[in-house]
């Protein structure tokens, strides 16, 4: 009522209101601001980001750049822990400090300038060092969604932090930027992803059509090759799915009931299709021919999905099982108990040359089948929940639907802990296989490990990095060479000076910069790490497993599982 009065009085206002209020689906202010990213991870992904609380240990350039790339897309909250005061050299690498920051707390100043980027984000700081913090406040770590640690932190602290976080299921990113070199290690005990964002989820079921699909194509099949009964126009608008199903039927009848299975037969089948064209420019037949290779596969379950089905958490549900495992189990039961080992139909249909009504009808057939499969899975979910003594309606249909659509593409990743890599179970082969290649980025990995040992040395109580003075740089480099041999000896990897030529160069490049960051490399690292954090938090897309190394000299990266 009131608004109506306003409308007649101020027409300009009514124009604004009618735009933002009466048009269903018009974007909110938040949707406008985040439009370009919502197109990548959607509202659910955004919500996950907004509920996250990130801890950054040490406000280095790489650390603040990482936070910048998380504050901008609207992470809920971040905390910086750092006991350093801002020095002049920080200003030469860190954009989130200025002349007025010198001599003040680095945690506080970077926090202030980062908060300016986005009023939706809450930032806090703690003036402490992490070694002390995990002794005095270990329980506080539970409040964080993800932890990033950068800067010159002794190995013992890294390993304690990894121990604490790994058992809490909190992802830990260990980020190192020294000169032109960057490494980042992710440790995360378990990560299950439903929305991996494959290029396509289309499954046309051409080789195993379900009854509704068979019924639809049989209608057309009878007249398809008959020029008396079908006009040229109609023939040029038969959806290629129907063309393929009919052609397959014809093929089977002359090939002992078999389908074209190998490459040669598929090519013959394409010629067979071409022979069915009435004239050379029937696009729908061209589309059918192009669809033979991608869509002529019998339904099967990807090994990555089988891994999920065979996992103990899937086979042995408990009252505290997460929704992921319950839905996974329901889908497994659906496929193996009721559906000949076939996953629920995702239901997507690509565009194809067709009359509107024929296409929509075909689309509805796929959608109806997907909905029916979803209903069956939903029913199993309810039964499972009841059996576990939980509310049978506690898992939403939309979560089950998302899983059904992505069942063939879901992933379960277990990322090894840092303690496994450094102490109990190192990946010896991965390291030794790379050493003989002088261009391998594994040399930088060893260089950074040696760098860590240098700053962790008991006699180096201030964690002074190698190479701070021109005069002692080569001595420091030789010390790092020594540490490299210690690491390799511990791994039982045989080495020789020739084999370590690449490592020796990497060491000298690392020492060259004197323990500092170069802004470009730290900025690049901030981009890479923020992206991995977004993937982990949103549980969308596939994160790296588990170490990425970037070399700014050759502009190359490599991911190793270590």
């Amino acid at each position: 009522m009131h608004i109506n009065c306003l409308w007649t009085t101020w027409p300009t206002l009514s124009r604004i209101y009618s735009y933002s209020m009466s048009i269903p689906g018009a974007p909110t202010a938040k949707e406008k601001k985040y439009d370009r990213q919502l197109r990548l991870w959607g509202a659910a992904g955004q919500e996950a980001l907004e509920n996250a609380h990130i801890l950054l240990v040490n406000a280095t350039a790489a650390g603040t750049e990482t936070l910048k790339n998380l504050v901008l897309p609207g992470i809920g909250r971040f905390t910086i822990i750092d006991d350093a005061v801002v020095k002049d050299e920080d200003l030469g690498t860190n954009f989130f400090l200025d002349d007025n920051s010198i001599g003040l707390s680095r945690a506080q100043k970077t926090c202030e300038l980062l908060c300016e980027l986005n009023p939706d984000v809450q930032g806090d700081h703690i003036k402490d060092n992490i070694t002390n913090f995990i002794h005095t406040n270990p329980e506080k770590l539970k409040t964080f969604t993800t932890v990033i640690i950068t800067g010159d932190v002794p190995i013992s602290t890294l390993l304690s932090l990894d121990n604490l976080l790994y058992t809490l299921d909190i992802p830990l990113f260990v980020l190192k930027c020294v000169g032109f070199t960057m490494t980042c290690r992710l440790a995360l005990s378990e990560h299950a992803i439903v929305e991996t964002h494959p290029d396509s989820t289309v499954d046309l079921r051409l080789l195993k059509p379900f009854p509704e699909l068979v019924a639809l194509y049989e209608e057309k099949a009878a007249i398809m090759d008959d020029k008396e009964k079908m006009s040229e126009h109609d023939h040029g608008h038969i959806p290629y799915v129907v063309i393929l199903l009919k052609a397959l039927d014809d093929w089977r009848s002359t090939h002992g009931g078999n389908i074209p299975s190998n490459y040669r037969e598929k090519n013959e089948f394409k010629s067979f299709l071409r022979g069915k064209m009435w004239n050379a420019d029937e696009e729908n037949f061209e589309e059918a021919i192009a669809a033979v290779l991608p869509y002529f596969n019998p339904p099967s379950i990807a090994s990555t999905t089988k891994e999920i089905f065979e996992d103990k958490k899937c086979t042995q549900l408990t009252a505290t099982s997460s929704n992921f495992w319950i839905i996974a189990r329901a889908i497994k039961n659906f496929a193996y108990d009721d559906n000949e080992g076939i996953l629920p139909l995702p239901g997507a249909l690509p565009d194809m040359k067709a009359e509107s009504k024929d296409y929509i009808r075909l689309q509805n057939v796929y959608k109806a089948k997907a909905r029916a499969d979803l209903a069956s899975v939903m029913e199993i979910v309810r039964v499972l929940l009841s059996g576990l003594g939980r509310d049978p309606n506690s898992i939403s249909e939309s979560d089950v639907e998302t899983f059904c659509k992505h069942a063939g593409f879901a992933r379960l990743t277990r990322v090894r802990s840092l303690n496994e890599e450094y102490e109990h179970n190192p990946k010896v082969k991965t390291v030794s296989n790379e050493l003989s290649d002088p261009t391998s980025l594994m040399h930088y990995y060893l260089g950074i490990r040696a760098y860590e040992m240098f700053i962790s040395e008991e006699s180096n109580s201030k964690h002074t990095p190698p190479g701070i003075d021109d005069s002692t740089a080569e001595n420091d480099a030789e010390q790092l060479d020594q540490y490299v041999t210690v690491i390799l000896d511990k791994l039982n990897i045989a080495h020789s000076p020739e084999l370590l030529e690449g490592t020796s160069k990497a060491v000298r490049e690392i020492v060259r910069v004197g323990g500092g960051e170069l802004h470009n490399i730290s900025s690049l690292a901030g981009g890479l790490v923020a992206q991995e954090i977004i993937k982990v938090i949103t549980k969308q897309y596939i994160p790296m497993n588990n170490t990425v190394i970037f070399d700014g000299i050759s502009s190359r990266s490599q991911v190793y599982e270590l």
Partner: protein
Amino acid sequence: MATATVLGAESPDRWRYLNNILNRKGPYTDEAFTPGDEPKAFLADAKILVIGAGGLGCEILKNLALSGFKDIHVIDMDTIDISNLNRQFLFREADVGKSKAEVAAAFVMKRVRGVTITPFNCAIQDKDDEYYKQFKIVVCGLDSVEARRWMNATLINLVDDETLIPLIDGGTEGFKGQARVILPTISSCYECSLDMHTPRAAVPLCTLASIPRQPAHCIEWASVIQWPKEKGDLKLDTDDPEHITWLFTKALERAKEFNIPGVTYSMTQGVVKNIIPAIASTNAIVAASCCNEALKIATTAAPYLDNYMMYTGNESIYTYTFTHEKKENCPVCGNLPQNLEVNPEWTLEGLMERLQERPETTLRKPSLRTSSKSLYLQAPKQLEEQTRPNLEKKLKELMETGDELSISDPGMPFNLRFIITMSE
């Protein structure tokens, strides 16, 4: 410790780490590298130009300022939009509507002491050769193929005995991106790799007009067919929410008529504005890689990229670094005209239509000449009228095998050259 005379003006420690790599040779440094004052002086004196102050541009300006460059120019004709704020970190809500170049330059100058950034709120085409000649390096952070082609061709045209300006180009789309170094006439240029970009397949008009199947078909119908039909001469402004709302409503009606589900406001915007997803992290990666190359080229402190790095982040992290080969017959950096087979029965207009369909030619208003005569000229008006009758003529009346056909277009800063072969 050796302290830079030029870089250390603010404080001897501020550029300590950058100075370390300029004062010390590394294991991969080129023989010709002289550590010390020479690379520092170059950094301090070199003028560097940044094209674009958007997602990549903001990052590039920050990175160059923190790489020790002191004299930076930036060109961008855009103003700040609310949807930029999720990644263009030099802008705030209060800046919406202001010039990107000006706001970005002012911000970085305020934050990083000692750097001068000169902004230009104009199109790159507004600047002449003399202007571009003053720069040692150009870094491009653009989202438009056309602007990149123009910049690429301009820098290649500038090459002479004294001038060779490296072009460092970055591009992103969602979780993907690339950074590359172009040494004009020496390494592969932007035009050489144009076929790597596959243009989005256009939907046939008849699908839009009579057999829509997808929500996007309904949206395109609204913008391509219904807008001109109902709105006459009023130009569609895809930034005007009222226009988008109109298209959305029309598309929705059409979708309802054909039972097509899925038309949303957001999709309407995406289709008509051809929106490419964009996030801070990908921009950071690509921009940093570009600026790392700029620093290496300017100082020779380490070898630079030869010449292309592709990056994908949606599944793990993947980069592919390789040398993109120069194209022999590149219309911009090559010197040979390409061969073009034509049917003598085609009309000149038919030839123009076919040329417009080729991916490497983004022609809008082409003018065509052979070495002996003007076939069709778009301007001036008088010549257009004079040459217009040629459009109807068959090619066999206008040219013969071996003729060189030259095509100019306002969208391209260079001429396309073809050697004609007539074939049935």
